[in-house]
């Protein structure tokens, strides 16, 4: 009952409707799972009966993949199915099965849950003064971080502002989902995922199973943007149901469920204070961050506090800095990664303050930034290594034609450091058999076309033409280990692993064949090599954006053009680099103009459809000019990070451009629509 996945060129496959997404799987005897969810943001569960409940499946969630790494608050666990309390709208309480999704949904009627509603904590500002959401905790503090040293300021200019980014939903076009199948010994999970290895680890942890009894296979994955790197309660329930019924079980999220129950990103408030000289040089920074961690002290809430504040200085030289940060609980779905995952927040907060310095001193926004750049790499007082930013910013301004364009246009700028998730490394495997080469990577594409560079790199190393190379979907049974695809890491780390595995394979073939070695003989044999690539150097890179705004005839601020200048090292697949920038620009603009998840005071979701969530449409997309600056990468194959750069650089540049066009300061994203209207209409 295996699922066959074709390894043909994905573009040719997708345009014929032949993609193999997880919802396309049809297995003999397959059941559909429907999850019964809490209608309350906070309630005591008095009783629950019918279907699969937490009394039967006593399991809790593990923080894995991109979510892992925080300081865990172990006093509270996040249950797979709630039995005592529910803490966000949509939290899973029970699950039912049916022969198709219609029957499964009908069966929800068989579940009876009695609740005693409680007053939810919705505003993070009031979280610490409210009673604890979880009785095991003394308050609602998840994590606290203090970076740098407090200092006494002595500067002619002191500027402060409160800045905020709303909670946002990742919203890939393909929702989350899986099919779980059990043969009496082995659990096989077909997944829409950013990381098969994280899924295996998480499922093994929650189900108390050894990892070698679980195989996770990645299907074509229709976008993720952070939402598919870790595991969720539904995956554990579906796996449990497959083992219980001995029938394959499918669960596919609907969009309402995605907006309610898939981890949301951003959701941060920053009180920023900068101390500057009259010449625009910033001497000190103080910041206090408050992060809306959602309902359970697992995952994002644990690491985001120090992660964001460590990046606040960005590409600048600011000798003194002190950043405090707290992540607090609210009765909302957990905080998780959304494209950028902390990086866009840090850049938005710092860049907004640079613009404030420009306004205060009367200096040009480019000049203020330039005066705060460095000619040498350094480690900031908040602990981040930063490349020399002055020469790069000069290049970017020239590429933007900033000085001539600023005379005629309403422009905004941004300058930032991309800190990719390069720690942890990544795996790849290369095999030769039957005259063809197969390539796997531990973390794989969910729309970025990683197969393109994987094939190119293997071809270059082995001297085998790309048409003889097949790129494989990731599968825990194909590789001995792996990490996952997030944090702008895969071209660097997965690519590096493909290079190393190819070299290993070639060396093995040369050893065996000796002087007889040739490309033709290599393909006649059978070889296999796996490599785990972990770079020694830090791989941070620089990026800059420029946005141009205007006021439309009806009097509304709008963005006309977004230009990017990112250091991507050697672009491995140039058109894919462009595609990443264009798509990321759309998301960055979405963050500025519309995207957010809103709740009522009683914790009900006010943005329950994809239309409410505020995705950019084709009619709203401005001109995008994608430029890259090629600076040497420390990696053999030349790659640097890219995927998250537009969501970091576009929001501050676009916000500034709108600010310049409309003449009013913006401190919140998304900008409220009524604030995008010009008071006066431009003359015809």
């Amino acid at each position: 009952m295996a699922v066959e996945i074709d390894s043909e060129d994905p573009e040719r496959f997708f345009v014929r409707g032949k993609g193999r997404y997880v919802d396309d799987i049809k297995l003999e005897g397959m059941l559909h799972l429907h999850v019964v969810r809490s209608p309350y943001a906070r309630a005591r569960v008095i009783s629950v009966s019918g279907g699969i409940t937490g009394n039967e499946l006593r399991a809790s969630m593990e923080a894995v993949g991109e979510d892992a790494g925080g300081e865990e608050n172990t006093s509270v666990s996040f249950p797979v199915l709630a039995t005592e309390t529910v803490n966000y709208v949509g939290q899973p309480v029970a699950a039912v099965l049916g022969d198709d999704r219609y029957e499964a949904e009908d069966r929800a009627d068989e579940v009876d849950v009695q609740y005693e509603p409680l007053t939810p904590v919705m505003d993070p500002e009031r979280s610490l003064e409210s009673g604890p959401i979880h009785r095991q905790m003394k308050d609602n503090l998840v994590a606290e971080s203090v970076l740098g040293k407090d200092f006494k300021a002595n500067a002619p200019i002191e500027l402060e502002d409160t800045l905020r980014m709303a909670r946002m939903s990742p919203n890939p076009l393909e929702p989350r989902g899986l099919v779980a199948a059990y043969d009496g010994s082995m659990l096989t999970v077909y997944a829409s995922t950013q990381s098969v290895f994280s899924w295996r680890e998480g499922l093994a942890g929650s189900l108390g199973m050894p990892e070698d009894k679980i195989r996770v296979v990645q299907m074509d994955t229709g976008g993720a943007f952070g939402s598919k790197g870790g595991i969720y309660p539904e995956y554990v329930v579906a796996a449990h149901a497959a083992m219980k019924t001995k029938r394959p079980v499918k669960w596919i999220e609907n969009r309402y469920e995605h907006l309610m129950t898939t981890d949301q990103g951003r959701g941060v408030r920053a009180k920023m204070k900068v101390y500057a000289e009259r010449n625009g040089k910033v001497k000190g920074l103080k910041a206090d961050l408050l992060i809306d961690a959602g309902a359970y002290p697992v995952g994002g809430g644990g690491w985001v506090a120090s992660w964001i504040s460590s990046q606040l200085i960005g590409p600048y030289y600011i000798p003194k800095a002190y950043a405090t940060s707290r992540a607090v609980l609210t009765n909302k779905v957990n905080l998780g990664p959304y494209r950028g995952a902390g990086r866009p927040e840090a850049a938005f907060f710092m860049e907004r303050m640079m613009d404030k310095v420009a306004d205060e001193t009367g200096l040009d926004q480019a000049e203020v930034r330039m005066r705060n750049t460095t000619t040498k790499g350094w480690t900031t007082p908040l602990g981040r290594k930063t490349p020399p930013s002055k020469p790069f910013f000069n290049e970017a301004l020239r590429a933007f034609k900033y000085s001539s364009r600023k005379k005629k246009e309403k422009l905004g700028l941004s300058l930032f450091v991309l800190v990719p998730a390069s720690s942890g490394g990544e795996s790849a495997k290369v095999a030769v058999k039957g005259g063809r080469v197969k390539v796997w990577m531990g973390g794989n594409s969910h729309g970025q076309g990683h197969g393109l560079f994987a094939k190119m790199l293997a071809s270059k190393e082995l001297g085998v033409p790309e048409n003889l190379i097949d790129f494989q979907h990731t599968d825990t049974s194909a590789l001995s280990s792996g990490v996952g695809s997030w944090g702008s890491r895969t071209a660097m780390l997965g690519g590096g692993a493909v290079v190393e595995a190819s070299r290993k394979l070639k060396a093995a073939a040369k050893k065996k064949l000796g002087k007889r070695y040739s490309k033709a003989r290599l393909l006649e044999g059978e070889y296999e090599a796996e490599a785990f690539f972990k770079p020694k150097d830090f791989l941070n890179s620089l990026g800059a954006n420029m946005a141009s705004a205007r006021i439309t005839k009806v009097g509304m601020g709008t963005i006309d053009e977004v230009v990017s200048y990112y250091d991507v090292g050697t672009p491995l697949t140039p058109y894919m680099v462009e595609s990443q920038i264009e798509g990321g620009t759309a998301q960055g603009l979405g963050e500025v103009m519309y995207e957010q998840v809103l709740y009522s005071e009683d914790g009900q979701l006010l943005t329950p459809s994809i239309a409410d969530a505020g995705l950019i449409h084709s009619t709203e997309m401005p001109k995008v000019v994608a430029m890259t600056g090629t600076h040497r990468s420390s990696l053999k194959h030349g790659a640097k990070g890219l995927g998250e750069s537009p969501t970091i650089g576009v929001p501050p540049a676009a916000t500034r451009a709108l600010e310049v066009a409309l003449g009013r300061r913006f401190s919140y994203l998304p900008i409220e629509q009524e604030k995008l209207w010009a008071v006066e209409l431009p003359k015809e």
Partner: protein
Amino acid sequence: MAGKIHISLTVNGKEREANVQPRRLLVHLLREDLGLTGTHVGCDTTHCGACTVMLNGKAVKSCTVLAVQADGAEVLTVEGLAEGEELSAVQRAFIAKHGLQCGYCTPGMLIAAHALLQNNPDPTDEEIRDGISGNLCRCTGYTKIIDSVRYAAKIKNAHK
């Protein structure tokens, strides 16, 4: 649930029959009963357009059409765009101009583009943007999709 209703329809030029519950959606008839999984469900609420198919010559979102409403109708899905192994102009243009990334919105985008070019063989960029404005894409920022549709019009017009 009430009894099933017998329907017959033409899908991608083939006569098909099915017994369906009155509540069954056209997208589920296509995907689950007829095995045409190219048509995708993205949002369930008619916003994203991943489920777009041609119904009697018009582009519709099959997640909000009942299967029984398609009784006697002609349906064209992404699987019916190519003629055998030969891809249609729209499909070739999306490959040539890289009008896709994850591929999930692609079938709906192709059908929307097909419908647009059927009614307007030489659209302006603004008309292309309008023509696909009922379809959401989260990966591409639409830029390369718009390029693809423009190129598809060019290919089609060159073959006239």
